[in-house]
């Protein structure tokens, strides 16, 4: 559509810098979340789309990091990036809970040197920041991003080693184990921001299979003083959960306008500010896909 072009162009620029900030949803969808036996495979679809869980827009092509129940790093096998989705397999050989994560972490921004505006190279980490900004640079504006997208798969009994927090960005601390979900039992999760329980986070829960439903099944909640949220599942199914410090953006919008708080309720901590496609401050988000089984 003609009139949308400028908007899309802005969205594309933002996508390079901060995929988590755009309206399209990033998701990882495992073939199974609860398996029995001692030697299993799961396969995972990874994509970016509006409708959950339909791969009809872009693949999520990043190679995921697999953490095995004993804490060691596993391997994503048969990784393939297609037009609409990426797929990969994980070979489960240990008993317990695996984490499969795509963490988009880095610093982006720009500076002025000798009158010329330069971008900080993509992929720069917070630790490298000092080394990529040359002496004499002025008007340095940077923004840090930690966009965590992870799923869990359990072979045998659930374990908790993969939930050890790193202290960076938003992380999930299970009260209810994410591979122990049944439709008739509410589940409680705690969310940490930089390792500490974070109140007031926006938690969006959306049931997959939206194509066959007139109205989306969506639950909007905020974490309590302990950073906890209790979700009552409307039915069994695959749910997409997204956690952000600020109110989720309506679809189709570009970069968030300056100081847009939580409907005026609460300004974002280090809230993003519009600055020519390079928002300053910090962007953190957490995304997971949870399977809720029938009782």
């Amino acid at each position, binding site marked *: 559509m003609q009139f949308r072009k400028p908007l899309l162009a802005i969205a594309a620029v933002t996508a390079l810098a901060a995929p988590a900030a755009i309206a399209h949803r990033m998701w990882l969808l495992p073939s199974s979340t609860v398996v029995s*036996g*001692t030697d299993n495979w799961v396969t995972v679809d990874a994509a970016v789309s509006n409708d959950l869980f339909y791969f009809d827009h872009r693949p999520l092509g990043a190679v995921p990091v697999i953490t095995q129940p004993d804490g060691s790093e596993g391997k994503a096998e048969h990784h393939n990036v297609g037009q609409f989705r990426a797929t990969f397999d994980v070979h489960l050989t240990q008993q317990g809970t695996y984490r499969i994560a795509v963490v988009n972490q880095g610093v982006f921004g720009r500076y002025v040197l000798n009158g010329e505006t330069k971008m900080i190279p993509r992929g720069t980490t917070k630790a490298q920041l000092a080394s990529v900004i040359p002496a004499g640079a002025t008007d340095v504006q940077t923004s840090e991003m930690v966009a965590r997208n992870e799923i869990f798969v359990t072979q045998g*009994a*659930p*374990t908790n080693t993969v939930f050890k927090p790193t202290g960076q960005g938003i992380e999930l601390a299970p009260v209810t184990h994410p591979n122990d979900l049944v439709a008739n039992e509410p589940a409680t999760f705690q969310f940490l921001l930089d390792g500490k329980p974070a109140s007031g986070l926006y938690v969006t829960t959306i049931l997959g299979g939206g194509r066959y439903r007139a109205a989306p099944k969506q639950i909007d909640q905020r974490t309590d003083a302990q950073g906890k949220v209790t979700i009552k599942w409307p039915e069994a199914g695959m749910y997409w959960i997204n956690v952000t410090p600020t109110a989720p953006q309506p679809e189709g919008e570009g970069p968030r306008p300056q100081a847009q708080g939580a409907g005026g309720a609460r300004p974002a901590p280090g809230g993003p500010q519009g600055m020519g496609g390079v928002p300053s401050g910090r962007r953190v988000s957490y995304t997971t896909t949870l399977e809720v089984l029938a009782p």
Partner: protein
Amino acid sequence: MQFRLTGLTTAALGAGALLPNAAAAQTMDLSIELPRMTVAEYHRPYVAVWLEKEGQAPRTLSVWYDVDKRGGEGTKWLHDVRQWWRASGRTMSFPADGISGATRAPGVQKLRLVAGKGGMPALTPGQYTLVVEAAREVGGREVVRLPFAWNGSSATATAKGAAELGGVSFTLKR
């Protein structure tokens, strides 16, 4: 479920209120009907039988699955017996000595469980629920619950499934 396990709880029935006792062995005669199905593709169901008592970890009494499949591959579908898998199965390893066995044919299947043998604990008086769950490949899944009070001498209960299980009954004596 009256109570739930995180999977990290390993206390088992029989460890607490269900102390093995030296008296005459309690014997449970259990009858489970597997309905005959008129379907194009029939596979014998996986069946699990377990005992629940409030405040105690559930105790698996019997599991019927594809034990003979090469390389232990039959364990791959144990989690389809979903309530049992969550309540007890996922903390066990298979084959489970004295507990697991082959799948059974349609008809009335009899099972005798003697306290102290296999998975059957000696019961202390109290309220229990015997649970039977069946899950069938390319079929459905059903759970039948038989609550009972054990007074130390005898108990009996009967229930009926609607699809994957027919009549289920037991008598427990000592």
